């Protein structure tokens, strides 16, 4: 079997269509299971003051997705640019909106966390909050730059430059709570240490994060199919115009 043929948008289009339900259905199931574990099997959160901690499952999962998807988008944009691979560029464009949505969810849920615990919705001097806001702007910049440029391949290249330069912001977000300690608390789960959470809390967060991943793959594939079809329509129209 020749795997390289899947780099062709025309070949990938029906394959993507077949793959979508295999990610969408498990995503829905895992969201339900994760919420059940998070809300009903976490006795440690039952105390009055601690109920606010239920936000953490969706907040942390969304924040992770915002960062992961950004790196993934930059990798695809870079491949599309370096190897002139159209499908990789389309993948980058398809990831951008979903990444931006998760970043927005992390900002809003973080704000809803901040008001009752820190007494403020937002803090301009907090490094974690600001670097996440910059991540949001990078996504918006990538999306609007791409839609502003008519020539599709040139739009892809311009987007790739923004995406790749912006990658530097991701480690800054991750380490911001260590480098500049202000309002935002340190990481609940670190790669280097044992997590400061109970088993049920940790499982809920892991399951919801897995659900977010599966959801992302499903919607990105959906958007990729639209992207392939739309670009082909545009190409066909330009072709007809040239023929006349």
């Amino acid at each position, binding site marked *: 079997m020749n795997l390289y043929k899947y780099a062709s948008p*025309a070949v990938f*289009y*029906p394959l993507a*269509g077949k793959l979508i339900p295999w990610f969408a259905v498990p995503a829905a199931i895992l969201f339900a299971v994760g*919420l059940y574990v998070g*809300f009903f099997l976490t006795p440690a959160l*039952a*105390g*009055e*003051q*601690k*109920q*606010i901690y*239920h*936000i953490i499952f*969706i*907040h942390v999962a*969304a924040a992770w997705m915002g960062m992961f998807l950004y790196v993934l988008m930059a990798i695809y944009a870079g491949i599309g640019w370096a190897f002139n691979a159209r499908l990789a560029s389309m993948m980058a464009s398809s990831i951008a*909106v*979903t990444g931006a*949505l998760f970043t*927005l*969810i992390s900002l*809003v*849920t973080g704000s*809803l*966390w901040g*008001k*009752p615990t820190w007494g403020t919705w937002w803090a301009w001097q907090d490094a974690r909050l600001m670097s996440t806001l910059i991540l949001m702007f990078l996504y918006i910049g990538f999306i609007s730059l791409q839609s502003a440029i008519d020539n599709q391949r040139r739009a892809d290249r311009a987007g790739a430059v923004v995406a790749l330069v912006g990658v530097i912001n991701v480690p800054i977000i991750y380490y911001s709570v260590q480098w500049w300690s202000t309002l935002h608390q340190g990481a609940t789960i670190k790669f280097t240490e044992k997590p400061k959470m109970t088993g049920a809390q940790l499982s809920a967060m892991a399951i919801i994060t897995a659900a977010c991943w599966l*959801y992302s793959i499903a*919607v990105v594939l*959906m*958007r990729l*199919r*639209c992207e392939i*079809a*739309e670009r*082909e*329509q545009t190409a*066909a129209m330009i072709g007809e115009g040239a023929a006349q």
Partner: protein
Amino acid sequence: MNWSEFFSMGGYAFYVWGSYLFAFVLLVAEILFLLRRQKALRRTGTRNSFDS
């Protein structure tokens, strides 16, 4: 814990349910938006030569 206690979230109902509602609305909206985009494409009809 009974249901009204559960929904009150120790007084943090607005923040906790607000968070989940916001995330839910956004994710569902994304799916609906994509389904509409797909439908619009199908109507204009260039695509689907690949589908068969």
